[in-house]
């Protein structure tokens, strides 16, 4: 059966290393036993974290969750191919990849709570992560804007002689944005060391991928810009890894950018605010249940004797314990400092903002609600 929401003419065209049954159908990438296991655990961590965050959302503890369920191989497999010094420019759902690359889970959860421990100071809505330490820049909700940023940063890396590849993630929906067109074009013209990672999960909220474009595949778009593309089975972690690794290697050697299309499926709604039953059928979702990316890698590793039957269950329990401990710790954060209202707009708080803040504080104080640390600015 052809995976309708993906754009490929037939599934056979997709680059695969593990087939649906978890059997090796191409050569195994050079990954150690430990690295393979790490891939699996990282994917499981994404799934467990999503599950926990959804629970918190239902309990009213966090405002909004956009899960990556079903897309764990795409995100983790591809990001595992990046080197430490490379950058990951995020689309909507790559927070889990950032965790694998170094974003501490505590910061991830703090961001979901938008509490005082959040490195973005509670300014972004939930699910908008960043981590400077692992080159994962803050991203905007405005779809597609990160695409030219990644290209410009890749240009800068080249100009400055840095050995960096910039992996730019975005969705099928974002491929219609202005940022996609200018980003692809500039990258090719400049031979910028970047890799475009298009995660085609079949949907942009309620708009199916087949209605974003009439190109036969998303990969077909690369040709017009003068760069190579590869269509990948996005539920095959090893294929996602290998395709991204090859594209990065090319970019790193100065041979220019490439487009990697990871064809997967968004198993849940767009976010915790979305009800997908309004626009898609159970019959469409059903076949994807059998293509679960985690089960596929698990089957392969068990077959290879690198994983015991039932071991995944133990890993899940351990991960949930780890995540719950972090949640517990983040529940108790300090209240957000009010001064963050006016800080970071500029390098220094300008006079007019100090005035506005002090006015606000004067009124709050008259109700006895200002707290220590909320102090007025000297004018």
């Amino acid at each position: 059966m052809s995976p309708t929401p993906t754009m490929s003419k037939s599934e056979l065209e997709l680059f695969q290393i593990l087939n649906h049954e978890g059997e090796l159908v191409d050569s195994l990438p050079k990954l150690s036993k430990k690295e393979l296991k790490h891939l699996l655990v990282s994917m499981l961590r994404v799934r467990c974290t999503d599950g926990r965050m959804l629970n918190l959302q239902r309990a009213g503890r966090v405002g909004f969750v956009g899960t990556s369920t079903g897309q764990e191989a795409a995100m983790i497999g591809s990001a595992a191919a990046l080197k430490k010094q490379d950058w990951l420019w995020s689309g909507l759902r790559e927070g889990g990849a950032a965790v694998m690359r170094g974003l501490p889970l505590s910061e991830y959860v703090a961001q979901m709570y938008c509490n005082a421990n959040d490195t973005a100071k509670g300014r972004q809505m939930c699910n908008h992560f960043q981590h400077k330490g692992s080159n994962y820049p803050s991203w905007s909700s405005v779809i597609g804007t990160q695409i030219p940023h990644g290209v410009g940063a890749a240009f800068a890396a080249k100009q400055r002689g840095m050995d960096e590849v910039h992996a730019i993630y975005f969705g099928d929906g974002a491929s219609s944005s202005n940022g996609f067109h200018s980003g692809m074009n500039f990258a090719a013209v400049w031979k910028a060391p970047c890799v475009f990672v298009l995660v085609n999960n079949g949907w942009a909220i309620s708009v199916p991928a087949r209605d974003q474009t009439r190109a036969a595949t998303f990969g077909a778009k690369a040709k017009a810009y003068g760069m190579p593309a590869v269509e990948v089975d996005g539920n095959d972690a090893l294929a996602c890894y290998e395709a991204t690794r090859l594209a990065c290697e090319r970019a790193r050697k100065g041979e220019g950018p490439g487009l990697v299309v990871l064809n997967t499926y968004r198993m849940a709604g767009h976010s915790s605010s979305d009800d997908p039953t309004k626009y898609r059928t159970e019959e469409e979702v059903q076949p994807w249940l059998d293509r679960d990316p985690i089960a596929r890698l698990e089957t392969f590793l068990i077959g290879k004797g690198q994983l015991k039957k039932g071991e995944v269950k133990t890993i899940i329990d351990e991960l949930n314990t780890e995540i719950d401990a972090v949640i517990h710790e983040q529940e108790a954060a300090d209240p957000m400092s009010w001064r963050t209202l006016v800080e970071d707009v500029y390098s220094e708080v300008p006079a007019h903002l100090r005035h506005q803040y002090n006015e606000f504080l004067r009124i709050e104080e008259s109700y006895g609600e200002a707290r220590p640390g909320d102090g007025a600015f000297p004018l």
Partner: protein
Amino acid sequence: MANITLLKAVNEGLRGAMQNDPSVLCFGEDVGPKGGVFLATENLTSEFGEGRCFDTPLSEDGIIGTAIGMAMNGLRPVAEIQFQDFIFPAFDQIVSEAAKMRYRSGGQYTVPMVIRTPYGGGIRGGLYHSQSGEAYFCHTPGLKVVIPSTPYDAKGLLIAAIQDPDPVLFMEPKALYRSVKGEVPDENYTVDLSTLRSVKEGDDVTVFCYGAMVPVVEKAAALAQEKGISTNIVDLRTLLPLDEEGVLEHAKRTGRVVIVHEAPRFCGYGSEVSALIAENVIEYMEAPIKRVTGFDTPFPNTLEHHYLPDERRVLDAIEQTAAY
């Protein structure tokens, strides 16, 4: 008559306009089968078919650019921008093209279209699901900018906007979508653009406001009343072109003016209202004109309830203005 939410009134306005005129059509991201992320276009695809209410690719620039062409060639497009925060990819098409078409063609070509978009804070949407960008558009001659605050006005102003011969930006206060209800006639009707609405008559201080700030001001006025201050509340509801005469009348009536909006202050819409009053009727003013606005910062998330003007801040301004 039915007692319905502002959201439902938008939906009914669209349905009424589509029934009335086959050239009216709705499109944008997720407006089709899903009915829009807020459900403003719910059931329009099933009622009018995919040719009249449909989804587009994810490109605001594409949505508005094509809407302009449709409007130039006999259709009455009602384009939705999912959140006002996402309108900026289409800024060029709105500001350089839609707004200037009539002028640059000497009136030969016109753009009778409506851009509907939810704006404003209060839903924990952070920087990019909360903004109030009306001032950018009010600085654009050729556009009309409308913001309803009641279900009755939402339907009547929307139908008027769709019938209007010029491009109208119709900004919907998403914080009020489900929180306000009101009586709305079942049949089609219009509320004239460029007219004010007197929300509550009062003698001491006039407060000009619009959109989601109207209920906040009403709460503050009730608190002021307890302190013996009578507030005159005016909902501007069409920001461009503004009913300037009406504004001046209301300003003169109390000689004391407060202007409230949730958008940032600097070069915000309140600056224009304040300047209008100062230029024309300063001799009637008995107190400095005061503004209560959002901070001159991007929109926060966790502290959004402090960013947004609340009844405390509005009350403080009313009291200060009354006491001056």
